[in-house]
Structures are given as structure tokens and as C-alpha cells.
């Protein structure tokens, strides 16, 4: 977990926020370099939205300090609280929050009018930003006549038009249907890349986080579980929680027998009195002899019909669901049901006996 603080543009230190007696955010700290795209990821109630709202200034905080550049946004200890309108932040909300009594162009022009910018410049900048989000043709439509996806584009345009120092996203895609969501996440990322504004993105959807982010912070119960790039988070989760939350994983309790080289070792599984050992990667902080959890992604478990030198386990296919591009299988091994993804052309069927192979490169021992 790296909380590199020096040289960060946005710096959150020891943020604490209570709701009544509940600690919604429990002393988290992180920094972001200028221009980066950071995602706060976690289930509902993990504190990600509260963190975002604290940065936005839409509520006060109970402890800690938030700073952007040289400006302290809030610091209760020093009695500092900058109201949201003075923070110079653009924000995109889940409900789009497009003002229905204004046209698209009026919505987008609003932040510039508030900043008392001259009319000709407003017109230019609104036209530019509408072009960027692809809404030029809709400029004079009332916001209520737009589709969900278009409203979200308008909302994004409004958030970036004043070139704010920070861009905040509060689950902006969760009201869209699946197809549109997949389209919009690529689009959002492209626009953010183009304008280069430092962005914080809040979501509970792990695939969204993987697709869009430069970096991801996985949160749970008001604390940070792991921080890293998408590939790192997916392929090297540090603990059972992250492994389970991001993607799908086979998780089994066991023991690390020995550590060979740094970061590599031998893992022992026990089921029904049978003991199986397999080489694995170790996540940081795991030593020989400790209890740990084995984490293997279904796509990294290979089911074959013939036993050979590399196969470790023997099991029975309990069901195989055809999903078009792949087959979702379950393989029973003792009490444990392995989730396995197979190619459709293997034509695995329920009731078959299969052997499982593991790739040491993608077999992890993580902290419970």
C-alpha cells in the first residue's frame, strides 16, 4: 500500500467523518499527482462517496485535512472550511443533475456566468466543450429532452467548462443501462485524457474501475484496503477481501509451507484429509508457516480430461453453463467447488471427471 504524499496535487490526510455514531471514513490518507485519474472503489457504505463529498465540501468533516495545490480546502483542527462554491471543482453526479429549466447550452454556460466571464468568451468556450462531448447539435434543446447518456455528457461538459482544478465523479454511470454504460466509460476516459484535469471517480462497479483508472483505491469499512494500477489490483490482490471484490476468485484457506525466493513459495491445501501442495506467488507480508488464503481466478484454472505431470487435482464437473464465448463450470473437489472457465469448444459436460492445472504465475497466497 503506497501512500506517496510528496509532490501530490490533491492531498487527503487522516480524513475522519462520522454520521451520528458511525465512522463513515476512518482516517484515510492519499495523494494524487496532477492530471491523474484515481478511482475509489468499494461496496456501498465503504466510505468512498463520503470521501468524495468531503473533497467537494458538500459536508463538513470531523478530522483530518484536505488540500489541493496550496489551498487548504478543509481542516477542522485549524477551523478552516472553504464552502463548495469557492473550491473550483467540477462534479458529475449519479442523477446527472442537469437543470431541467435550462437548455443544454445554458446549463454549460452557468459556471462561466457565475465566474463573470464576458459573453463572447462564454459562447466560444461552451461551443468548444459541447463539441468535445459531442452535443453540438443538442445545444439549444431543453435538458429534459435528452436521453440518459446525453444528459450525462451535458453534465460532464458543465463540469469541465470552467477548467476546474479538480473533477469529481459520483457513480456517474450507474443510472445508465448496460450497453450505454460500456460505451460511456470509454468516452468519459477519452474526454478526461483530452482535458487533463485531475479526476477522482467513485464507483462500486469493479469493471468500470479496471477499464477507466490510472490508479484504484479499494476501500472497505472506511479504510483503504489496497491501492494500485488496474492490472496490479486484479492480478496481485493483497488480501482475500480485494481478491473477492475485484473479479471472481477461488479462495481456499491453507498454509504457506516455505518461501523459496522473495515473493514465491509453496502452498498447502487440505481437504477431506487429502493434502495438496502447489507453488504460488506470495503477497507482501506473508511468511513461511503462516495461515493464508489461496486465490486463483477461474480463467487461470485449466480443466483437462487427461492426467499429466502438471495436473494437481482431480474433480468432477457438477455443472457447465454455456455462455457463448465461454463455458462457466464448477468442479467439485472434496467440499470445495472450483469455479473454472473453459473454452466452449472443450464441450465439458456435467458429471465428467477432470483434472485441474494451475499456473504458478497466477496462483496467489494472500492475507486472510
Amino acid at each position, binding site marked *: 500500500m503506497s501512500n506517496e504524499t510528496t509532490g501530490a496535487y490533491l492531498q487527503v490526510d487522516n480524513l475522519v467523518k462520522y454520521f451520528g455514531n458511525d465512522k463513515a471514513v476512518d482516517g484515510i490518507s492519499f495523494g494524487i499527482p496532477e492530471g491523474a485519474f484515481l478511482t475509489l472503489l468499494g461496496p456501498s457504505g465503504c466510505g468512498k462517496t463520503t470521501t468524495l463529498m468531503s473533497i467537494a465540501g458538500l459536508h463538513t468533516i470531523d478530522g483530518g485535512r484536505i488540500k489541493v495545490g496550496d489551498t487548504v480546502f478543509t481542516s477542522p483542527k485549524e477551523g478552516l472550511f472553504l464552502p463548495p462554491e469557492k473550491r473550483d471543482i467540477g462534479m458529475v453526479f*449519479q442523477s446527472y443533475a442537469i437543470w431541467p429549466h435550462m437548455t443544454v447550452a445554458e446549463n454549460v454556460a452557468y459556471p462561466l456566468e457565475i465566474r463573470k466571464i464576458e459573453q463572447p468568451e462564454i459562447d466560444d468556450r461552451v461551443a468548444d466543450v459541447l463539441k468535445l462531448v459531442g452535443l453540438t447539435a443538442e445545444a439549444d434543446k431543453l435538458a429534459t429532452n435528452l436521453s440518459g447518456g446525453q444528459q450525462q455528457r451535458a453534465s460532464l461538459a458543465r463540469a469541465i467548462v470552467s477548467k476546474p482544478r479538480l473533477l469529481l465523479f459520483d457513480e456517474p454511470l450507474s443510472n445508465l443501462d448496460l450497453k450505454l454504460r460500456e460505451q460511456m466509460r470509454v468516452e468519459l476516459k477519452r474526454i478526461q485524457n483530452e482535458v487533463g484535469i485531475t479526476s477522482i471517480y467513485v464507483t462500486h462497479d469493479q469493471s468500470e474501475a479496471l477499464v477507466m483508472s490510472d490508479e484504484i483505491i479499494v476501500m472497505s469499512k472506511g479504510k483503504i484496503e489496497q491501492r494500485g494500477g488496474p492490472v496490479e489490483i486484479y492480478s496481485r490482490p493483497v488480501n482475500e477481501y480485494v481478491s473477492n471484490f475485484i473479479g471472481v476468485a477461488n479462495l481456499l484457506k491453507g498454509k504457506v509451507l516455505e518461501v523459496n525466493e522473495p515473493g514465491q513459495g509453496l502452498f498447502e491445501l487440505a481437504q477431506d484429509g487429502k493434502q495438496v501442495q502447489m507453488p504460488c506467488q506470495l503477497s507482501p507480508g506473508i511468511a513461511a508457516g503462516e495461515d493464508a488464503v489461496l486465490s486463483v481466478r477461474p480463467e487461470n484454472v485449466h480443466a483437462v480430461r487427461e492426467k499429466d505431470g502438471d495436473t494437481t487435482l482431480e474433480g468432477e464437473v457438477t455443472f457447465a453453463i454455456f455462455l457463448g464465448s465461454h463455458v462457466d463450470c464448477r468442479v467439485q473437489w472434496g467440499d470445495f467447488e472450483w469455479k473454472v472457465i473453459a473454452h466452449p469448444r472443450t464441450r465439458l459436460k456435467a458429471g465428467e471427471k477432470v483434472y485441474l492445472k494451475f499456473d504458478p504465475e497466477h496462483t496467489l497466497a494472500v492475507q486472510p
Partner: protein
Amino acid sequence: MTTEALSPTRERSPLNNRLRAMLTQENIITLVVAIIVAGAVVVPLAVLFVSSFKVLDPLGWDTTWGFGNYVEMFTDRIIPKAFLNTLIISSGSTILATFLGVSLAWINARTNCPGRDYLEPYNLIPFFLSPFIGAIAWHNLGEPQTGLLNNWVRDIFGVDWALINIDNIYGVIWVTGIFFAPLVYLFVVGSLRRMDPSLEDSARTTGAGLIRTTMTITLPLVMPGILSGAIIVFVTSAGEFGVPFKLSAPYGWETLTTQIFSKAVGDDANHFLGAAMSMALGIITVLLIWIQQRYIAPRSFTTVTGKGFRPNVLDLGPWRWVAFGYNLMFIAVAVVLPIVCLIIVSLHPVWTGKIVWADITTINYVKTLFWWRPDAIAAATNGIVNSLILAFGGASIAMVMALVISYMIHRTKGFGVRMLDFLSVVPIGFPGIVLAMGVLVTYIQTPIYATLWILMLAYITRFFPYGQRNISSIMLAISEELDQSSRMAGASWFTTLWRITIPLLKPGLFAGWILLFIIFLRELSISIILFTTGTETLSVGVYYLTNFENEPLTAALSMAQTVLLLIAIYAFRRFAGREALTA
């Protein structure tokens, strides 16, 4: 944005900063309003309560503390009977209004009755008109000797008896019943229309027939709406003054409201006994409204699924013409007949029960409307001007108040908010005449007594919740993120209110304003307690004419009020919708 605006106020001490943070525009305004509302609502009711324990000595000079007034209520010759009559009238009109309201709503929402899209606005008209004027019109239709309907029947069938006699408590039930039917209609029609059709479809596919589905699924689902409507009708009928005053009190059927009125202004005025009776009436109505708000309204089922559904429509076959006739009949007795009758009566110098074409005259309109003429009747001409002032001014002030209160309730946090939420329900529980008694005993010794201000104060206190509900329903529907995104765009709290929140609430503000305008224009039961010479309102003018002048003059002023109301109703239809009413 300049960098200066971005730097926080570093130089001040933390404590100073915290104090400053509390004294925001937002907090100051909301605090002031909370105090004003509490003063307006709580003070009169508290004074009324205290006054009810002051007993006037037999000579009328001095008062002592005690329960004497409450004892007298039970030992008096008339008051216990008035209690009973109020109970009978309220129960009767509740049953009638519920039957009419539910059946009409069902016909309009769920059957293929012809022309149902055009009928609805007319079904709702009685809701806006004055029931007092309805009583006057029905008196002229159903009085045994001079009633127009009775005379028509006598002429056509050559009989010598009267078809109906409206001047008794059954007449009161009839008029309040048909005038309050739209209340029940409004509570029921929405849930009938918005009900998820698969709730009924699933009963059908499970094996239940149409009738069983209606009895076990449809009706239970709209039952909370029916009960809410019924309770509101019961409470409104109990507080209704004009109809029993016109149709039953003169013939020996007093009610609580007519008795309170006689204790407030009559020859045997006794404000303290009036206060005690008001307390008794108020406690009953508050209790019922509390039950409705607390236990019935939250059970409303269809709001859970409240999406835009296309409801199942029942094919009535030839019976649809019966339904159509039934609906036309309602509009006839509630709207058309009363208005036609008033027009006819108002065009005669004296009313004998028959149309005399040779006598047709406009003199009654001249005397009641042309204030510059020497033969104008001051009580009537004053009424128009005063009512317009009260309606314009009162509706405007009340809506500003309603806006601020709604904003506080839905957009700010703190202990004052819960109190406000409560305070904005309380006035709904008290009939106008009860609140007016409270205002009377509170302010009778102050300079605002005998001015229009006291009327306006009472109007606003009693009716601002209606405006507030209109705004709140919209405020609940618009996401708080709309406000927040304006703050994020760099706008201050006040700019956000002015440029985002208020424009978004415009439909609700407007609907609420016209609704209050209509209510104030026809208001009687508050005005009748608080008016003095010179501050008569339209309805007080009508009261004066029917009490001290003749029926044709009364009918003329009634028509003037009705025309004003119809114009306002038209404006309401244009700018607001049915939704604005059920809020």
C-alpha cells in the same frame, strides 16, 4: 475565478471561524422563519386553550378561572344537540362524498365510459367553488314553497306538494356531500390510475375472476386513499359554517360552528364559552387528522410502485352509457343547476319561486357591484375589494413563507426542522372557525384587530400548509444534486436558490399561489369571526345579504364570486395540473 476568493480566512482564530460558519445566510434566514411560524401557529392556539378556562360571571363583567365553560357545554339547552347534529352531518356527508368520489374516480380511471377525458375537469369544479354559495343555490332550488325545482315539478305534473325540502340537516348533508366529493375523488383517482396493472393481472392469472380481483386486490390497494379522503371530508364538514348556517340553523338544527359563531359575534357573545367549544371541535378534528397523517397516509401502497403505467381499462359494454349519465348527473346537480338557479334568481327584483320574464332586471348587480352609486350596499361592495386584496396579498406572502419552510424542511438539517415540519401540519387539523376564535381572543385588544391585517394573518396561518405541500411535493421529486451541482459550479447558496431552486419550483409555486388565491377568495368561516364593518370579505358580503337583504341580491353577489372563482379555476387548469391538488 480569482485566487483571492480561493484563500480561506486564515488570519482569524479557529473559534471565530466556527462562529462565522454557523452564521451563514442559510442559518439566519431559516431561524427567523421558524420563530415567525411558531408565533403565528402556536400563540393563537395557546391563548385559545387558556381562554377556554376563563368563566364569565353572570353579569358579564368579570371572569374567574375554572372548568365552567366545559360544564356548560354539556348542560346547555342547545350545545349538546349541536354536537349531535354536527356528528350526523359529518357522517352523512362523508358517506355521500365517499360514495360519489370513489364511483366517479373509478368510472374515470378504469372504465371506457365515453368522454371521460373531458369530464374530469368538471367533476373537480365543486372543489373550488364555495359550498356556502352551493347552499344558497340549493335553498333556491329546494325550498318547499319558492324552490325552483319544486315549482317545476308542480307545474309539469300538476301536483300540489313539494318534491324536496332542502332546509334541514339532510339538505346540509346533500350539499356538503356533493361539494366535497371531489376531495375523495382526488385521493383515489391517482392511485387507481397509477396502479401497476400486473398487480391485477397476476390475480387473474392466479385464477381469480374480475369481481374477486376487484374486491380482494384493487379495492384494498386504494383503501388508504379512500380512508384519507373520507377523514378529510369528515373534518372539513365538521368545520363547515356556511352550509348549516344557511340550510339548517334557521330551521332549528344548530351545529357546533353556528353555535361558536353566535358566541363570537351574536347578542349573547361569550368569547370564553366560544373558546371552549372551539377547543372541543379542534381536539376532535386534530385527532382525526393525526390518525390520517400518522397511520393512513403512510400506508398508501401505490406510491411504492408509482411509475407511469397504463392501467387496465374495463369494457362496460352498453353500461358505459349508464356510467356516462351518472357522471353527467353529478355535474348537473353540483355545478350546472346551482349556477343556472343563481343566475335566474339574481335577475329578479323579488323571488317568488317562479320565473317572471317581464320583471327581469340587472338592478341586483348594480346594487352589489357598483360601489360608486349611492344605492350600493356597502357590505357587498367592500367585500369584492377586500377579498381581492386578501387573495393577492395573502397568497403571495403565504407562498414566500411556504417556499422558505419547504426549503428548510427538505434541504437543511437541525432540530428546528422537525418542529417546522410539525408546525406545518398543525393548522390543517383545526377548522378555520376554531383558528379564527384563537386569533380573535389573542388579538382583540391589539391595534391589528378591525383591520384587514388580522384577516390576512389568520388566512395565512390556516392555509399556508396547502401551499407548502405543493412546493414540497416538487422539492421531493427534484434531486438535491441539482442544487449541489450549482454550488460546485461556483454559485453561492443564495445564487443557487435564485437561479436554480426557485425556477425549478415555479410550477409548484404557481399552482400553490392560485390554489390559495381561490381559497382566500371564497373564505367564510374565518372571515365571519374576524370581520368588522369595513373589512367585510366577499363571502361575508353574501352572508350579510342573505341575512339582512333578500335572495336576489344574495344571488347576484354569489354569481360575482362564482365568476371570479371560475376564472381562477381556468387559470389553475392552464398552469397547474391535477397533481397539484393531491399534494
